[in-house]
């Protein structure tokens, strides 16, 4: 069972990485198309901005799964408890996992289920009735990345518990940063 979860997590990680790489590259190409169209042909197509923006959202949300998997999320302070397998370490890890779950489970739930009216009135259900202006496709195909990213994180979280604690790397200080 735990091998299965770890294999699933690793497989999803590879896929998310490939799609994210594709999305960043796609963003770059799309904006370049806009630049060339505007400055060389002075007629930018109207879809470039939307495509680039949606690719950015995909980049960011899939990137979120990458940073979760590689434990490179920003933390304010290192755990004061000793690492697993000590009991305190287990408790700290359980607390961290509970925090992740309380954030992502409502997102996953409400992506599919509405307050009233079940599946059809969930976030994705509502988005399926809307059309992305310039692209003419249903918004659901763009918005679906929200639950996808959260479900991937859920599986990575399960894999972290399935992993041998000794094999886990500590969160390394991020060498690339935003600030």
């Amino acid at each position, binding site marked *: 069972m735990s091998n299965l979860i770890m294999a699933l997590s690793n497989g999803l990680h590879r896929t998310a990485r490939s799609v994210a790489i594709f999305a960043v590259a796609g963003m770059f190409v799309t904006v370049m198309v806009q630049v060339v169209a505007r400055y060389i042909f002075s*007629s930018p197509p109207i879809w470039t901005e939307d495509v680039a923006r949606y690719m950015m959202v995909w980049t960011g949300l899939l990137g979120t799964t990458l940073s979760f998997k590689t434990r490179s999320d920003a933390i304010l302070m290192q755990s004061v408890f000793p690492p697993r397998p000590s009991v305190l370490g287990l408790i700290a890890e359980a607390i961290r996992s509970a925090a992740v779950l309380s954030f992502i489970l409502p997102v996953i739930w409400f992506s599919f289920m509405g307050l009233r009216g079940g599946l059809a009135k969930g976030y994705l259900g509502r988005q399926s009735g809307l059309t992305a202006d310039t692209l003419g496709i249903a918004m659901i195909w763009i918005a679906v990345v929200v639950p996808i990213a959260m479900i991937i994180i859920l599986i990575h979280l399960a894999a972290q518990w399935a992993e041998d604690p000794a094999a886990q790397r500590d969160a390394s200080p991020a060498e690339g940063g935003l600030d």
Partner: protein
Amino acid sequence: EVKIALDSAPELENSGTYNWVQGFKGVLEDAGMDVREMPRDSVGNEAEKFDQLSTGLLELSLSDVRAIAQVDPFIYGLRLPYIFDDSAHMQRALAEGKIFDRVNEAVAGQDVMLLAIVPIGPSSGIITTDAAVRTPEDMADLRMRALDDAQIAMYKAWGTTGTIVPWGEVPAGLQTGVIDGYLNSPFIPIAFGQTDFVKNFSDSRTIIPIRAVIVSKMWYDGLSEDQRQVVNDGVAAGNAAAQAWLDKVSSAALTALEDKGVTVQRLTDEERGAFRKLSQQVYDSGLMPSEDVKVWTDLSSATR
């Protein structure tokens, strides 16, 4: 509690929609209903407001017409250049053509309802940095900021060039010459502090700038007969308040521009006719299904 998501600062002098809200709110409060104004952006952007109306978490929103068009683009007929002479003409057409019934049938699946269309300011004119525009020929060498493909088509029909620029980049674009102008209400250059570099306004009255009043269907359906009557009276009061405000500011807006050093070109009906005539090409450009265009043009002629 009726939560109203505002789209502008709560200023009666400058905002058509805020005048509408005050008219609407007055009637509801007199009938003992609880109304709460949610400041602009406090419940989120356009997509979020629409989504909350859908789920019944928000009761009423002043929204971009685009929110409705995302479900059914028919409403975009309101943005055809020169489709209506003025706001009063537009309201007559909306009422007589039973447009609200037609739209509400289309958007019912999203659990929202369109209650009113509100003018947010005097009709749009051509705002430029340097060029004084009285005829379409005056615009031949300009590059105009376009909002969407419909505006690109309109500028093309006028013999000029449109280029898509997001609103946030418009001031820098104007100052640096990426664009020479844009189409908007005469309020906009003052409201956004652009009168240092925007020097001309041509009163072409091309499009009526509008917002859509959208409500949660779940909320509306849950009202009693009496309450629903109160809401409908509120809508009428809101429409009247917005129109009264518009009548007051329409000429004042042009003088306000002049006070800020902007040259205003007051076009004659004949001069405006030149723009109107060229704009006809947009109607047949295939951006909207031709049967939809026909609905709007027939309605417009019948109520002119």
